[in-house]
């Protein structure tokens, strides 16, 4: 179903970017988890009292009483959303649209490898990258938490949370992949693949910021990722996660189909 030679080449291309984002995540996760201090929570809460909109807009809210609550407030509102998202945008565009735009897709197509196989290979490269980032973040979070605050972090809760995070990023990856398959021009592929997730994230920030803007949350898919709800085991949050997963699979399917059907002027 996938072409191993192409997969290897693409994973090699992903490597630099993966290492970069892994380094960024390492830095933030380490710093933020080590900042956790039940007494410090009071200080952060006081920040929240002074500038609630600013803190809330980046997903940081008051009243995080345990370590996972603290992590949700300070890691799952920005760091772990934005960086894998940038990876999806950059890689998503590079996997199909850039090849078509530059004309080097000819090399891939002038061979007995079917278009469906090419698209599935490129998709699996994107999914592998997302998976590696989320798995790495999970391992890192657990390790740092165990070193700094042994026994404070429940692994089951962390796994549930990151499973939801994975679904969110698979969904974002789906948008980027779809854009890459539909548009033959990198400009449009990036405009759509980066524009939609970025706009959704901004809406999410607005929705978090104020009471009256709360209604905006119905217009962004980030609402489907309910970190606190997942950890608390709420049914609605689990449903949101499933919607993201099925959405992702749908985007992948449409993307591959679009690529197989479209005219390529290369």
């Amino acid at each position: 179903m996938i072409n191993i030679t192409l997969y290897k080449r693409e994973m090699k291309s992903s490597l630099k970017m993966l290492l970069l984002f892994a380094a960024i995540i390492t830095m933030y996760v380490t710093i933020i988890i080590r900042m956790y201090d039940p007494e410090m929570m009071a200080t952060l809460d006081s920040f929240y009292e002074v500038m609630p909109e600013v803190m809330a807009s980046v997903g940081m809210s008051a009243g995080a009483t345990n370590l996972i609550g603290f992590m949700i407030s300070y890691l799952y509102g920005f760091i772990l959303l934005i960086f894998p998202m940038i990876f999806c945008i950059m890689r998503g565009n590079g996997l199909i649209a850039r090849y078509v735009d530059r004309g080097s897709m000819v090399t891939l197509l002038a061979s007995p490898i079917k278009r469906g196989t090419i698209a599935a290979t490129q998709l699996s490269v994107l999914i592998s990258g997302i998976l590696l980032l989320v798995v790495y973040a999970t391992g890192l979070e657990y390790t740092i938490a165990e070193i700094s605050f042994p026994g404070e972090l429940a692994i089951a809760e962390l796994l549930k949370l990151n499973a939801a995070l994975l679904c969110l990023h698979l969904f974002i990856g789906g948008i980027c992949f779809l854009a890459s398959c539909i548009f033959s021009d990198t400009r449009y592929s990036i405009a759509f693949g980066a524009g939609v997730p970025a706009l959704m994230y901004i809406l999410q920030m607005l929705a978090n910021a104020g009471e009256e803007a709360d209604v905006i949350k119905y217009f962004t898919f980030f609402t489907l990722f309910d970190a606190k709800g997942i950890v608390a085991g709420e049914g609605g949050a689990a449903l949101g996660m499933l919607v993201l997963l099925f959405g992702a699979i749908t985007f992948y399917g449409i993307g591959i189909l679009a690529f197989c059907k479209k005219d390529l002027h290369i």
Partner: protein
Amino acid sequence: MRVINVQNLTRDYGSGKGIFDVSIQVEKGEVFGFLGPNGAGKTTTIRHLMGFIKPKAGNCQIDGLDCWKDRGEIQKGLGYIPGEISFFDDMTGKEFLKFVADYRNLGKENRMQEMLERFESNPKGKIKKMSKGMKQKLGIVSAFMHNPDILILDEPTSGLDPLMQNRFVELIAEEKKKGKTILLSSHMFEEVERTCDRIGIIRNGKLVTVDAVETLRERHMHTYTVHLDSPQLAEDFARDFQGVCDGNRVTVAAKQSLETIFMNYYGGEEND
């Protein structure tokens, strides 16, 4: 046996651009020259053959298989040189050829080394830094590497120096002897004249004529016999004007430019 069969292929890009009602048949073991100026529709026709674009009207088949639906199957025995070479810039030439060989799942038994030697190419450097000619050689190697029975070559000699162009002409002749079917596009009359059995001329998306090379040559080449004062002079004259020397006499042929030939089909004057 008809290997390449294009029937009434039409693709209208608007404002007169595109191809209109193009029909081409290439028999097994034949070298077909596809001649036309830039933007005439050669590449558009070839994209249809490669299964890159779906015919809006008409259809095209290779080996009896539909070029759009069965493109994967067709590609097994097909070699292609694109008109505009764009490989993976981040690789060296060697890495690229190895990638293509692995990607196609070719074994050790392939013609890569033979082709590299034939074109005196040692592509160690990054593709990004290569000259047009170097890239073209890479394109030739990757098109012939898997020893395909059918070759679709879109302006295959562009960027090659005259020596390498000759090597290429020799290669085509050899492949033809082996019974390969070749469709070669070009905007140079001399090139197709030297390699092809039949020539199709396309202009503004319409196939103007399909003729045997001999017929076209007879129709469009004028020969003159010149008498000179001494055999020595005749020899010099023959060398300078690419004529055939016979004693004091030299026979020279005046080749019309491609444009003149087109004008014959478009400009009103029929057959000289």
